[in-house]
């Protein structure tokens, strides 16, 4: 059974992750946190297990960001719109909202897979890799399309995520 301190640490880590994900959603012009925003927040954790899991399959954080941007640019292009060059938004400047988290159904599905996954130590450091493990199961939406654009092997990504979860 996990000790009360590790549970508290995990809860703090989850809270920090979701607040960071909301900032990514706001920067992206989204009212609700989607799956890709949770992934971006996980990848932002310095020296974190999400970035480490990506690195195991040869993907950098910037690669994933670029693939997401390419997804949105392609979607706009399909209706004849060239995405304008908007100045980048610094997510650290975005205030955290009060009250409950606002997640899109896709964001909630990914998050429920994160908190419902078994076999981790309960370490807060494993949380990022747990997000990547949940991402490996995504089959639709911007995050899934970004993985496809990068040519990521989902099974290899899941193996990488499990290795980082075990190491955390």
């Amino acid at each position: 059974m996990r000790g009360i301190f590790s549970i508290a640490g995990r809860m703090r880590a989850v809270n920090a992750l979701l607040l960071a994900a909301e900032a990514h959603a706001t920067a992206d012009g989204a009212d609700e946190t989607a799956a890709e925003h949770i992934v971006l927040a996980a990848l932002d954790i310095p020296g974190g297990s999400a970035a480490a899991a990506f690195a195991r399959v040869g993907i950098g954080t910037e690669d994933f960001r670029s693939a997401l941007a390419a997804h949105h640019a392609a979607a706009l292009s399909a209706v004849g719109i060239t995405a304008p060059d908007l100045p980048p938004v610094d997510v650290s400047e975005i205030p955290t909202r009060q009250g409950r988290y606002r997640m899109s159904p896709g964001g909630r599905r990914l998050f429920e897979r994160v908190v419902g996954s078994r076999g981790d130590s309960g370490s807060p450091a494993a949380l990022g890799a747990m997000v990547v493990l949940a991402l490996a199961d995504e089959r639709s939406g911007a995050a899934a399309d970004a993985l496809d654009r990068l040519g990521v092997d989902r099974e290899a990504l899941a193996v990488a995520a499990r290795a980082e979860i075990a190491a955390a």
Partner: protein
Amino acid sequence: MDDLSQLPSPDSPAEALAAVVALRRLADRLEAEAVDHAIAGGWSWQQIADALDITRQGAHKRHAARRRAAGRPEEDR
């Protein structure tokens, strides 16, 4: 803006629906940029609300906290 008559093929709904998501997000980002420029140009929240056809409270709620956190406070005009 380019030619909006260039619609996705009716047999690729995923493409059309992805375009809707991207357009909504682009619109929100453009709104934030436009509001920042308007405030910098001396517009009041009421003027911005009128231009967006939303209430003054709505305009303030959507943008004031974001602007404060970004170090761009303004008096409550």
